[in-house]
């Protein structure tokens, strides 16, 4: 019984990371109908930006491969978080301007290649600066295991879980209740008409990429203390986050988060059964869900008029 509860909690902890990444995919999709396929690389980059900021504030070179036991204070952590959000947001703007806008209006899927390529560029630059060695990043909320009735979880994992839920609620409210949200949904529904109605579609689209990329920075910042900061960490998380978004429904932020959590819990219960079949089981479920509900469990049906 304890094992099942542990699997549930551990699954939610892992799922928190997937949920945040899934939300990042959702934001650009609901406004521009494009996806940043290098979202995973953005997550790794965010982790490294945050880590470098903390190293700088501790008076160490950004290429240090260890914190050497030093734990950055609250101010340093917050400044690092701001750095990760701002730098990644800026990169998101850059990605939109050079990688998405020139291709978004054209037929075909050139933006898929250009966002993928942007990720490769980010990865290569990251390797040149920080090298391949993973770096252990101290957690802002400590690293000692919290035991509840024999079930263990780390504070950082709980933090990630809470942040994912809060971000989901904020995003959900903004999309449904505010003018900005209505503008974003209008642009997604029909960019030309939205533009005629006086909505600055360009600004909305840029905004979507900035917010989505800043969210990747936040994800990287929060995930790094759990996985270690590594340039290779984003690839797996990006893929799983995307799967979570597909299961939950790409155009529904609530669905994305639930999909991410569900995927995490599903993984850890498969681990209780036969861990070597996990990846197969995960993608079998994704395919199964998509074949019955092509827009995901919570996604609304896409009505395309031709």
């Amino acid at each position, binding site marked *: 019984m*304890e*094992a099942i509860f*542990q*699997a549930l909690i*551990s699954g939610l*902890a*892992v799922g928190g990371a997937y949920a945040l990444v899934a939300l990042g995919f959702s934001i650009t999709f609901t406004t521009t109908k494009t996806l940043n396929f290098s979202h995973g690389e953005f997550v790794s980059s965010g982790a490294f930006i945050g880590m470098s900021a903390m190293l700088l504030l501790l008076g160490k070179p950004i*290429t240090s*491969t*260890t914190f050497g036991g030093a734990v950055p204070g609250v101010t340093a952590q917050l400044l690092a978080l701001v750095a990760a959000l701002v730098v990644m947001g800026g990169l998101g703007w850059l990605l939109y301007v050079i990688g998405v806008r020139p291709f978004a209006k054209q037929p075909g899927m050139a933006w898929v290649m250009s966002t993928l390529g942007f990720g490769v560029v980010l990865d290569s630059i990251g*390797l040149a600066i920080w*090298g*391949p*060695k*993973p*770096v*252990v990043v101290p957690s802002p909320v400590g*690293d000692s*295991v919290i*035991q509840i009735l*024999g*079930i*263990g*979880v*780390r504070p950082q994992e709980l933090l990630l879980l809470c942040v994912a839920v809060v971000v989901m609620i904020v995003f959900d409210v903004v999309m449904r209740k505010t003018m900005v949200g209505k503008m974003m949904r209008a642009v997604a529904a029909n960019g030309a008409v939205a533009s005629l109605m006086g909505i600055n579609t360009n600004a909305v689209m840029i905004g979507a990429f900035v917010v989505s990329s800043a969210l990747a920075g936040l994800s990287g910042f929060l995930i790094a203390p*759990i*996985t*270690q900061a590594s340039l*290779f*960490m984003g690839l*797996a998380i990006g893929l799983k986050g995307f799967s979570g978004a597909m299961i939950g429904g790409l155009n529904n932020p609530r669905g994305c988060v639930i999909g991410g959590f569900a995927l995490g819990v599903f993984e*850890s*219960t498969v*681990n*209780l059964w036969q*861990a*070597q079949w*996990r*990846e197969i089981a995960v993608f079998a479920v994704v395919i199964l869900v998509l074949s019955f509900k092509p827009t995901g469990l919570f996604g609304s049906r896409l009505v395309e008029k031709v």
Partner: protein
Amino acid sequence: MKAIRAIAGIVASLSFAAAVPAASAQEIKIGFNGDLSASPSAQSGQAAVVGMQAAIADLNAAGGVLGKKLTLVVRDDTSRPPKSIQNMSDLIDNEKVVAVFGPTNSGNAMAWKHIVNQKKIPVIDNVSSGTDITKPMSAGADNYMFRVSMVDREQVAALMAYVKKGGSDAKKIGFMSETTGYGQGGLKDMKSIAETQGITPAAIEQFGVGDTDMTSQLNKLKAAGVNTIVIWAQGTPIAQVMRSMEKINYYPRVLSSWAADNITFYDAAGKNLAEKPLFLRTVSENRTPAQDKLFARVGSQLKAPSSFSFALHGYDSVMILAQAIKQANSMDGSTIRVALENLNTPVKGLLKTYNKPFSKTNHEALTAKDFVWVHWKDGRLVPYTDAFVASLTPADYKQ
């Protein structure tokens, strides 16, 4: 940065050497082909190169080999098999090296081992530990792959001997491995040697290389009553297994692959958890006077002090090759191979004195009885012993 600069220096000096073909009659070129920059194992490859350079400097200072100077041609394969194959052709066909060292990653050796066997160029692997690297292409065929490094199967043999000594009835054993090629290869060796030793694992569990929570798998082992776990994985995932043990407060005896010697493992697990696993290495951080001398020369060029073992492999592998060239009195690959398989003179290395290290059938210079048991203690890799380790004899290491 220092190591990168050092390597840049090597590359620069080598390209200079290559630009003076007139000198080639007076020199013997040897190559290194392995990852120096891309994967977390790159620091091991860098250390091996540093050790090889030290050996070459020593040999050249003593008059060279057969009156000729040795020079080293270094190629970085960035851990990619296609690049590694390309490097190999370049080293053999363009640079005309007499022998090659490396690679850093086992998979790359498997990618080009047919090439060196066809072209009859001896290779001494001084980093990667994959069991199959030194196997001949077909039974009884001439084999040009030699090794002065750790061997996965030999480690497994020693770990299983330890489990056997502890009594497989008193200890309920479980196996864990990651789902990569490295983990699966180790698991295969573990299963087959356990069978030879008459050990039956109570449970076998696997996990992904990037996983951060292995509590589900550990709870299954706990439920099966396992009190000794053998883990085959890379440094970071082993650390994640240890961290998951802490979550469910389950601390069985942990024996692991030598990847736990990587500083990334120590950093990720944290001091308390990192000190738990026992594993094997070719050397601990308690150095002999001769090893200390080399450390004083090259220590500053290493990314982490724990990677010094690869500098020792690098040093000794060059010394063994030099002796074989002397004995062969020739630069011909197949003659050197025959000499390597029948070395008449013992080679005094830094890890040990190699007395006939290789034969027609054995291409491993270091085997289970040469390895030392180590664990982390206060940030250093120190020798470990207990009643079971002390009572191990070569006869206990079953293949």
